[in-house]
């Protein structure tokens, strides 16, 4: 079962066949989605009616392409807006957390660390409803007390951002902490010794060292935010991010426009994923 130990050919080939089959299983749904984005038919299905780019650039019904489908464009914008905020917030807080957990010893550190990991093991739906319930009750209390409206605490983009931020921050913290742990504190001490201020040393020595992890975490955060569904579903208001918009469209009955969006999503996700990996690599 390792290359240096002889095996019968039948076993070797059936093993390889299984592995091949598995990768076919992995690739099948995505390739079908991509292929049918170019099918000249109003249903995302066989038979093949000929090649078309209409589902990307078409302007006339029923062939309205992605780039002319208002709702989709708007949803992409919403998703991008949410992702930017989530990414920025979670990376900022994650960096602070990394410094706190790696550089400081204090009472209750272990406990806080476990608390910090909790969002990983809470199902996304639960995370969503708990924030929904809490925000609403806060809003109710405030509105009863002041007579003003607190729309930000009602389902909507702010809650979506907070909901995604609540668990993506854990990932950012872990990625950045791992990098900070590899940092040799004597580099910072050397900077202090050469006359740098504490903040100056961190800014000029430590943060540049952390940069690959910070950018990597930011990219992963964008990716996770873009594709999040469970938490978002419970917190969404009138502006739908892309996954929610696609889900609604899917329930109404799909057209190859969805394939076209999916194809774009696949390309962008793969690129972002590879990018985050490259940053991980450059860490070494």
């Amino acid at each position, binding site marked *: 079962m*390792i290359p*240096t130990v002889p095996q019968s050919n039948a076993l070797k080939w059936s093993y390889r066949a299984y592995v091949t089959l598995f990768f076919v299983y992995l690739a099948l749904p995505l390739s*079908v989605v991509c292929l049918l984005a170019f099918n000249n038919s109003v249903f995302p299905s066989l038979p093949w009616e000929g090649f078309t780019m209409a589902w990307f650039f078409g302007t006339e019904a029923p062939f309205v392409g992605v780039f002319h489908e208002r709702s989709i464009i708007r949803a992409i914008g919403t998703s991008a807006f949410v992702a930017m905020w989530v990414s920025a917030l979670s990376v900022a*807080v994650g960096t602070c957390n990394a410094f706190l957990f*790696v550089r*400081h010893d204090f009472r209750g550190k272990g406990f806080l660390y476990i608390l910090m990991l909790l969002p990983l093991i809470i*199902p996304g739906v639960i995370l969503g409803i708990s924030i929904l*319930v809490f925000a609403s009750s806060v809003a109710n209390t405030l509105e009863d007390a002041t007579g003003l409206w607190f729309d930000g605490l009602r389902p909507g983009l702010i809650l979506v951002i907070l909901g995604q931020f609540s668990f993506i921050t854990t990932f950012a913290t872990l990625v950045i902490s791992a990098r900070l742990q590899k940092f040799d504190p004597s580099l910072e001490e050397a900077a202090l010794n050469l006359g740098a201020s504490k903040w100056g040393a961190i800014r000029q020595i430590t943060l540049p060292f952390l940069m690959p992890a910070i950018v990597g975490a930011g990219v992963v955060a964008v990716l996770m935010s873009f594709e999040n569904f469970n938490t978002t579903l419970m917190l969404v208001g009138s502006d739908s991010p892309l996954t929610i918009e696609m889900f609604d469209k899917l329930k109404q009955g799909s057209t190859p426009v969805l394939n076209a969006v999916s194809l774009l999503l696949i390309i962008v996700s793969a690129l972002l994923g590879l990018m985050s990996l490259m940053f991980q690599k450059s860490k070494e």
Partner: protein
Amino acid sequence: MRNGTPPKPVVFRRVNSMVSDKSKLGFYLLLSPLILWLVTLIILPHIGLFAVSMSEKVGVREYETGFGNYAVFFNEPLYWRTFARTAFMSILTTALTLVLGFPIAYYIAKLTRGRTKTTLFLMCLIPFWVSELVRTYGWMILLRETGVLSNFLLYIGAIDSPIEFLYNDAAILVGLVYTSILFMIVPLVTTLDSLDDSLIEAGYDLGGTGTSILREIVIPHAMPGIVSGCIVVFMLSLGNYLTPILLGGKDSLWFTGLIYTQFITRFNWELGSAFGFLLLGLSSAVVFIGLKLSRQSLSNTMGR
């Protein structure tokens, strides 16, 4: 559905030299975002969720504290059967991903090197960077009555009329396994990678066979990876919403579906919160038991 690999525990080293009285202010500045995040987005919401689950509506804007919502759950067979079904299907998914994923992880970790290894690993990763919605959509296109599979079978003459492959338990399982198998493969590849080839060679050298080496050397070594993979896959399946709803259809009877219905359709937040807490309880229990188990296996290999 969350992305990324399961977290590695961070090992702290003592860094007293970096902490002085001057940095007290800095310490609190660093502490505050963490506390703010955990308290307002994790702790208080869950306390709130629990409080709501304990309140029963007795009139318009009138509530009483009690276990009424939980009683509803246990008295209504549809609810607890759905709960049990969700748990059972998740266990099945976990077992399937383990059985299907182990050979793949072993192949990647032990039978490939260098470029091939990176490529195969990337080929595993890429589908999981893509939104779960897209993946599930792919399965819908493949499996539905007018879908690719049905059309293909018609075309080659294996069937006479279109077949609906969607909206049954098998479809749900196919989708769930697809969606979570990476979280099994990644920890398995990591642990199997750390198994020294010479241990396997020593096993053969001492007269072992493929199965005895798998049983006595490979699986015991991979145990931590197996446990952590199983925990994550079970958790993800239990909390999944998209796959069961889209592939299982209206009768998918998935517990997260019930929660959604109570919250969004019925607007019965009290019952929904109780459901949420039950799901959270089950999921946490599994994580807890899994951790206990893995610690035990840890002590089996290290502390015996």
